[in-house]
């Protein structure tokens, strides 16, 4: 009897096990999906179940007829990241992990350009940082060429192309030698972002003092004041005139107006007269009354 029943019992156990295996929910996850694209997840088993896709960036829950693929329309799953998928039917589950990857085409740039105002001819004075995103605001972590172009007021441009690294590209550039409004453009693929940078004259490069007698006074004036790139120094820049004689000293601060600074000072024979602005000193003259 035992010899007859044993194969029957084994057979029944195998049938029950295979039936249970056939009914338990199963799914075949894609290893990765591009954000916002249509995709489907084939399932196995029979009956109804729920499918949950959960990550920090997005959560989806679908009712599923096991044995049928679960289809997701374009734009439904769009947030890049790692997702846990669980297919549950009662206490029976199947689970796995898959990735949603960014769309490789840049659609948006977040562009930081600093400073917004700086002196001309400053080496590496301008910095630009670009973060590269797809249409769903996912960071594109694959390398993307990003070009930076800094054009000065004359249209002369510096250009540099940098490959992004985990979504970031950055550069430093020199400010132009010509004052004016510069355009700083970052471009990746078909998308560009522009910032405006105000490039202003630097400090005076040199000062030249000119003196003329004017009755009981001496009329002092600078030659037109320029920075080292030849740009006129802005009105309001302070120039200091100093007159010294016999241990006495007279100092006057004068703002530049229309490129020059002017002042009248007492005409002291034998006085030494000098001019300075910031750290720049001009020529010195000895006044003999004419």
């Amino acid at each position, binding site marked *: 009897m035992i010899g007859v029943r044993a194969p029957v019992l084994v057979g029944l156990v195998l049938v029950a096990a295979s039936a249970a295996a056939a009914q338990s929910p199963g799914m075949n996850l894609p290893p*990765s999906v591009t954000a916002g694209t249509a995709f489907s997840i084939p399932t196995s088993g029979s009956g109804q179940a*729920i499918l*949950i896709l*959960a*990550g*920090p*960036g*997005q*959560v*989806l*829950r679908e009712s599923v007829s096991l044995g049928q693929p679960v289809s997701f329309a374009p734009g439904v799953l769009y*947030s*890049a*990241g*790692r997702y*846990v998928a*669980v297919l*549950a039917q009662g206490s029976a*589950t199947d*689970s*796995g*992990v898959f*990735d949603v*990857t960014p769309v490789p085409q840049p659609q948006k740039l977040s562009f*930081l350009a*600093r*400073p917004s105002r700086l002196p001309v001819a400053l080496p590496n004075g301008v*910095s630009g*940082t670009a*973060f590269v995103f797809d249409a769903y*605001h*996912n*960071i594109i*972590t694959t390398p993307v060429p990003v070009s930076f172009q800094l054009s000065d007021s004359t249209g002369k441009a510096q250009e540099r192309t940098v490959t992004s*690294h*985990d*979504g*970031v590209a*950055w550069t*430093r550039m020199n400010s132009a030698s010509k004052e004016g409004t510069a355009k700083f453009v970052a471009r990746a693929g078909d998308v560009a972002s522009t910032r405006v940078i105000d490039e202003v004259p630097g400090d005076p490069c040199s000062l030249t003092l000119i003196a003329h007698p004017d009755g009981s006074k001496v009329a002092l004036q600078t030659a037109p004041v320029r920075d080292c790139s030849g740009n006129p120094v802005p009105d309001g820049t302070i120039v200091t005139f100093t007159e010294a004689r016999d241990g006495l000293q007279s100092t006057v601060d004068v703002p530049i107006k229309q490129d020059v600074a002017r002042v009248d000072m007492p005409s002291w024979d034998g006085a030494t007269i000098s001019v300075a602005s910031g750290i720049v000193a001009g020529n010195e003259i000895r006044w003999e009354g004419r």
Partner: protein
Amino acid sequence: MIRTILIRATLIAATLALSGLLAQPLAAQTDAPSVQVDPPDLQGSRPLEKQTEAAVIRDYLQSWQSMAAALDNNQPALLDADFVGTAHDTLAATVDEQTKLGIHTHYVARSHHLQIVFYSPEGLAIQLVDTVAYDEQIFDHDRELISQPVNARYVVVLTPSEVRWRVRFFQATPPASPAH
């Protein structure tokens, strides 16, 4: 030359205890994640002070606690202290979706392996990568469906706010993605 810092629960617990917001998730979490920090690899972008590095790592680790608490309790307000901009909006939207669907998720980080890889020249953004191992538990109407181990490489951008660094971009990539 590689410097490894192992930070156990003390730092995070002390930080979070000050906030008083996340006592419950911490109490429930018996095993705090191990944290390994590699030296910054900044590619010459901007020097990074030690204090800044420590603050960024402290604030980033705390952001994981905030995120876990928000997604576990479906309370988007728990994100406010540590997230800003896109990261905040994305996570808050996930919390809203979870609430509508009757789902909540419990993230338990087991380990973080961090490296700061970029400090923007003007000092307004810091990027780090975190190779993190965590368990993600999914609850459907309070019934636990699964606890799934996950390994991921997160790309994170933090920006300074009044008193702390806050996470502005936060996105996982496959662990096998090209290394720096």
